[in-house]
């Protein structure tokens, strides 16, 4: 093998192998510290009880903590995950539906919900509630 060809082979092989190796060790370092179960599985489990109550199709509203900005990335992610958990029921990011899923991180009292026109149907723990919007009956 000529030095020119050897140089070319080593150039491609070394850069590729070092890239693969660096990523492998980064992931190997992170993997033992990864949460178990993972975040999506954990989030999914919070909705198991609610999902069992829902019909096989329809639209349900969704609301989260008051004052959450509409473009908040975490809130968006949790809404998408709520849809992932509750499919095939459609989850609309709006409280203007008769039945509404509440996904709260801050304490919310039944009274404050009633003041906003929502009746608590059932609480599932971990901040997940099913509400009825009394204005949309």
């Amino acid at each position, binding site marked *: 093998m000529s030095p020119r060809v050897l140089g070319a082979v080593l150039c491609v092989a070394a850069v590729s192998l070092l890239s693969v190796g660096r990523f492998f060790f980064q992931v190997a370092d992170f993997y033992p510290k990864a949460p178990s179960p993972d975040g999506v599985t954990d989030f999914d489990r919070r909705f198991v009880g609610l999902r069992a109550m829902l019909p096989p199709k329809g639209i349900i509203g969704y609301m989260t903590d008051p004052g959450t900005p509409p473009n908040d990335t975490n809130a968006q992610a949790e809404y*998408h995950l709520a849809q992932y958990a509750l499919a095939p029921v459609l989850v609309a990011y709006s409280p203007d539906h008769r039945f509404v899923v509440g996904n709260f991180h801050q304490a919310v009292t039944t009274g404050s919900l009633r003041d906003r026109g929502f009746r608590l149907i059932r609480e599932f723990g971990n901040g997940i509630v099913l509400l009825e919007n009394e204005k949309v009956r």
Partner: protein
Amino acid sequence: MGAWLLFLILIALGFAAIRALWPAPPRWSSADPLRLAAAPAIGFGLGGCFYFALRVVLQQPPAVAIAAVCLAAAGLGWFAWRRAQSAVPDVPAVSGQIPFWLWLLFGAGAAMAFFTYLMLNGAAPHGEWDAWSIWNLRARFLFRAQEFISPFSPVIAWSHPDYPLLVPGVIALLWHAGGVESASMAGAVGFGFLLSCVAVPFFTLWLLRGPALAALGALAILGATSLVRVSASQYADVPLAAYIVIAACFLVYALEVESVGKSVVFIAGLSAGFAAWTKNEGLLFCVSIVLAHLLSIAHRMELPRRLATLISLVAGILAVLAFVGHFKFRLAPANDLVNTGTAGVAMARATDFNRYWVTFWAFVGELLTFGSVLVPPVIVFAVWLALVRFRSKVTGASLLPLAAVTLQLAGYFAIYVTTPQDLDWQLNTSLPRLLLHVWPLSVTGIFLISGDLFGGRPQPEPVRPRSK
């Protein structure tokens, strides 16, 4: 258990379909590794089409779709066996020396990539954001729904209900076979596509250019670590990259090894069609590969063969586009990129020079940082080609992959320029993944035109009657 069994049946279906169209003698044949490498992606593609036609369109019970896949695998297997009895042996692979240390380097790279995939999949079995907000979400809808209107509702427009259904369809099919939604099944499908994405270029290069360029090419493909990361994220970008590289590799093989016949070109067309059934960008690839097929001609004498094989290529594409068309016109809402704004607004964007400038520099920047490769791939391959130089005889067929890549990137560039979305946001969130679509094919194209490393010699084609 049922899901894993159907997973294996789908791979068998892919292998049987390829062997039925591209027959070889019953015993293990020299091009069988290439057939087997493409089998997972082709099998998943066929399975996804069966599922869509029987479950979504005809609303049959899932068991009917599963039974149809099993019957198709058995039927195609029997047909492949019949054709094998009178088939011409495959053209032997190009022989060539390869130092043992190069095998070791390739083996180490492949093993690390494999374990990286396993760890990433173990840490996030449902995949990353686009997986649970688009692809696996759609699979859940298909698996859980009693009807097929909700999955495409505008209420969840953010989940892009117009995106094609190959990947969600095959995952839902496997879930039905197992009776449960198993995240590991989605991970296994992702790994099948990743395997095809690397193994198809590897065996194509081995058959056409010898083992040294094959091992180095596959290692270079794995060198872009975003391939493994995005694959483990369960996005549809790696399945799309797999179909793109399979289509072009089979087409190049059919053009360089003339004895294989037009049915290999048909398989290339099917794969391009599956690309369109995987992501909307695949529709652009169908155009890119047809144009590349017609344009990448080194001599005027190649033109008649290109025209003669064009019908097979287009027939393969149209066979799958029938499913895409039914979905797009009967079930899916309009795409957000084409549904927003009028022709006048699009024209205004197309004549805004600043958008070209921003898009151009985004492409340049991404090309320099692509794939988390330690050294920009553009520099690595410039050095590579400077040292090994081009082949003494570069055929039009060997230029086809790079022509297809160029056309695909030109299409992406035009879409960015005219996108109704915020341009910076669109570039930042999608450009790395869009370049990943053509990465395996780009590497294959570069290695196809590279000079021989260790004096690889093509084997003589066998002189035997053509198969019936």
